[in-house]
């Protein structure tokens, strides 16, 4: 058989030094983009670094994404969230929560950090009780101004049906992305594994964040998941071999 000629470029051996140089250039350009974009925070904010992405400069995770079919319903996100915000584990105060759809699937319900933020638009107070932190994309609540349970215009406006009330104060529980380092994402990644990947992901730029999700309600998301996973029983209908026997019947 005639020996095929390899292209020159493949014949050339890449030395370790060359390889490292190539990597350095790539990292350099990433830094350059960051500098131009002006989103690299100062050193004091370095605590909000991107977790688990080696080599990236520390900057806030402005977007979050849920790979919903990976959710196992463990609710570690709720635990982490309430622990971070209140110092105690109390899932009722979590800014992200898991709901069940027909006992078939668990649906993570969370803030999609919409660019136009209908919740803020709906807030009737001046100045607004909820505001977006430009640096982190998190929504920050001013507890002194917020009208609480009697208003909840933000809840009505939320296209994702995400916002719920604090059972103690009545004020809305809204996601502030933990100031750039969402604890729910970390907790989810710690819990995940074999074979289920993490459900929650945080990203600084937002590529990979599917904006089409932003107006999906928990109920719709549940239907989607049931449809995806449980064919032919997408309705969650009970097919049980056991039948109830009431006294009247027999």
């Amino acid at each position, binding site marked *: 058989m005639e020996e095929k000629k390899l292209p020159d470029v493949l014949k050339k051996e890449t030395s370790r030094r060359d390889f490292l140089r190539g990597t350095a250039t790539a990292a350099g350009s990433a830094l350059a983009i960051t500098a131009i974009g002006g989103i690299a925070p100062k050193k004091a904010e370095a605590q909000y670094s991107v977790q688990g992405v080696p080599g990236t400069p520390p900057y806030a995770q402005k977007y979050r994404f849920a790979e919903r*079919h990976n959710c*196992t*319903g*463990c*609710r*570690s996100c709720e*635990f982490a969230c*309430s*622990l971070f915000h*209140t*110092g*105690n*584990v*109390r899932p*009722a105060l979590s800014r992200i*929560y898991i*709901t*069940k759809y027909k*006992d*078939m*699937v*668990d649906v993570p319900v969370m803030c999609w950090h919409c660019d136009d933020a209908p919740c803020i638009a709906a807030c009737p107070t001046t100045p607004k009780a909820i505001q977006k932190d430009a640096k982190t994309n998190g929504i920050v609540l001013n507890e002194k101004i917020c009208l609480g349970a009697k208003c909840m215009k933000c809840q009505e406006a939320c296209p994702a049906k995400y916002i719920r009330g604090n*059972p103690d104060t009545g004020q809305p529980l809204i996601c502030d992305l933990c100031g750039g380092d969402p604890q729910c994402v970390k907790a989810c990644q*710690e*819990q*995940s*594994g*074999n*074979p*289920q990947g993490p459900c929650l992901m945080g990203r600084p730029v937002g590529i990979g964040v599917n904006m089409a999700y932003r107006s999906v309600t928990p109920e719709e998301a549940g239907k989607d998941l049931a449809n995806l*996973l*449980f*064919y*032919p*029983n997408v309705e*969650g*209908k*009970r*097919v*049980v*071999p*056991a*039948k*109830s*026997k*009431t*006294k009247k019947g027999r």
Partner: protein
Amino acid sequence: MATPKGGNFGKVLEIDLSKQTFKTRPVSDEILQQYIGGRGLGAYYAVTEYKAGKNALDEDAFVFVGPGPLSGTTKKPVWLSIVNDKVEFKDASKMWGKTTDETHEMMVKEMKDPEIRTAVIGPAGENGVPYSCIIVERYRAAARSGTGMVFGDKKLKGFAVRGTKYAVPVADNAKFLAAAKVNKDNNVRREAWEGIKRWGTGGLMELKHYLHGSLIVKNYQTTWFPDVVKIGGEEAARTFWKRHASCTNCPTHCLKLGVIRSGKYAGMVAEGPEYESGGLLGSNLGMTKFDEMIALIEACDAYGLDNISTGGVLAFTTEAVEKGALKPTDLDGLKPKWNDGDTYMEMIRKIAYQEGKAGKLMAKGVRKMSKEIGKGSEAYANHTKGKELAAHDPRGDKIRAYSYTMGTCGGDHHEGQGPQALGMTAMADSLCICSFTNFLVYGAGTDKIITDMLNPLCGWNWKPEDYWTTAKRIFTAERVFNVREGISSKDDRLPIRMYKEKLPAGPRKDVIFTDADQKDMETKTYGFFGWDAKGIPTEATLKAYGLDYLIADVNAAKKKYNL
């Protein structure tokens, strides 16, 4: 009486169903330090509130659920909604007779809250089947000790719980979180943990068949069942499982949900097979059709029957028919034979409703059945202390015999393999830690890991030794409860088949559970806990564990039962 500093609210909810009232009973830090909670606290109340010979179906008998007792009996069926500080007694007459899944759905609908958690009984519990159970959130069972029957006797259909108001107090949060992280890291790095994440326990079916030689087949006749590939974890992963689900804040997501795609059960969304449900209602019945096996598991859950005991009863009945000890006329014309899913389905229904001669006979459980049938059937009646064995053949899995024979509840696979493990499991159950995560940190300094978490959580000053003293105290208190009813080493035995019949095939071919094995097990267990050769806790032991108040009870039992 000191109130606890953390980890516990220092009170239990006490519900009286007769008067439909509730109150909270304070629990002191001293008691919690001795008995922790959960199983340990239950043991404490059982030995202190009950005298010997108590019937679980008495009106003032209580059911202890996690951290609180329920007692009394109502005239009309009720269910309870427990939301924060409020307990409501609700009418359950419309739910009475409904299967567990329907009841769960009705409760969720009535509470208008998808996040409530439920625990309910099915028709089997209502009809007083002694191995009926409580089904938690539709797919999980609190089974094996007949609590479903006690609920049914009290006319209590179940309860729905939701708490939004309180966070568990922690004495030293920072230290506790650091210790919890160590515990988690220790857990998640284990291979077994990875395996349970991927396969649940269903994957053990193949493992136990090919490697371990302890899969149960056709009423423990053998451990060799090549058809396991049609019903095991591999088949489930290929054709059935669709998602992994977990309990609250657990990284192990061992619950596997799937859907049957075709056939007569098309569209059935179900959980399983787990090792026990797949073993008892699969290989133990010689099942080779996956969908029929899953349907049997689903039916047991829906009726609120213990999968394990039901599988044991069905297999025993089948073998009794095979050997001529039972005739179809004794079973309302049913002719059970291995791998006959439809007949088994009908038998399960009859058990749940105690319907006809067959239902009433089979609802008694294997021990009473074999006593009633006679004709040599005790040779293949597989139970310990009247409880049907789980899906681990103790001839192939000898260390499992500790759990079956020495465990408090008899015939139970989850009480701990080995003397130390028996104590560790008692601790895990009292701490309300899942025994999967507990089992997987064995040998890795569990005592230290647990005390490091407990101290900052509760504000205690435990040393690792205290872990062991408490474990032994709880386990010994339970033993005293049993001794008061006349239990001793003569009852700590496996079924006759395990001592008499060699395994005919498989990786443990020709193995038998010998008398030497039995002797060794007794010596090690009794020695570890400080019991005498007959398995009775000695006076010195009781004093050492602070159980002095039980010495009189033990002496009375020794006299009464000549132990």
